[in-house]
């Protein structure tokens, strides 16, 4: 029975192979491998989870506090001004609990809620792996 897998090359076959290989040399990589590696999914066990949004927000907050501290934001005058603002907001909320105290406060609350939702809203579902 004729072997089918061994595929023994006759001299004619070898000549044909030689001609084909000579006429059609290997394709140069030319950055193909690099493109493939760039298209691969991100590594599983990398530091990427640490760069998730909550982590980035926490880092940003700490950096912001450090910068503010460096510029004297937490000086006595600022602290007292902040206390006055807080008292004013508390008073407004206490006297008119159903409505925000003016458009500025409403805008601030909406911005805060949006920021918190952006930072933490989708994160747990997005990071979870199957």
């Amino acid at each position, binding site marked *: 029975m004729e072997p089918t897998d061994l595929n023994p090359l006759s*001299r*004619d076959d070898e000549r044909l192979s030689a*001609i084909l*290989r000579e*006429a059609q040399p290997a394709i140069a990589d030319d950055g193909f491998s690099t493109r493939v*590696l760039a298209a691969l*999914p991100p590594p599983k*066990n990398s530091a990427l989870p640490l760069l998730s949004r909550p982590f980035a927000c926490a880092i940003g907050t700490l950096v912001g506090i450090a910068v503010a501290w460096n510029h004297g934001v937490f000086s006595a005058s600022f602290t007292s001004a902040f206390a006055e603002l807080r008292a004013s907001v508390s008073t407004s909320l206490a006297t008119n609990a159903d409505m925000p105290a003016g458009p500025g406060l409403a805008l601030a609350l909406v911005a805060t809620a949006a920021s918190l939702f952006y930072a933490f809203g989708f994160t747990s579902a997005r990071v979870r792996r199957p």
Partner: protein
Amino acid sequence: VTPSDSELIARVLASDDRAAFGELVQRHQSSVRQFLRYLTRGDVATADDLAQETFVHAYRSLARFRGDASFSTWLLGIGRNYWRNAQRRDLRRDQLVEPMRGTVSPTATHSADLRHDLTLALRELTTDERLAIHLGYQEGKSHSEIAALLDWPLGTVKTHLARAKEKLRHLLAAWNPQI
């Protein structure tokens, strides 16, 4: 010592070694891209896109590679599946590059001329014959590997190879009358 394909695959699976996978891509990119260029009838851009998808798929499913066939045969099988899917998505693709009919110069003497004549000669073959010749004589695949790769009966592989060789023998007689 150059690591074998199996060793590189083991490194990718064990520690997600991207450099090892890059080495595998570099080793086999020419074979996969050439194969897909045959399937797409010379549509280089489409072939390279499919080749990239092939390697990304191979990376994702590397754990399922059992080593029954060689790694290159496994890759070519993935490439063929992507080509088929692309054909289904766009049936016109098969008609984009019609094979050109040409005559072979019997007086050509240089390598570039050989390349040119062979290109013309290959265009005289049917797509199946070209594939069989490419896999059998350029990639060195066995008849049974070609049969498995292209879902052809073994007899069909032999028939295509015999017909292709006969045509090439005639078309390339000027280069080597003994073929």
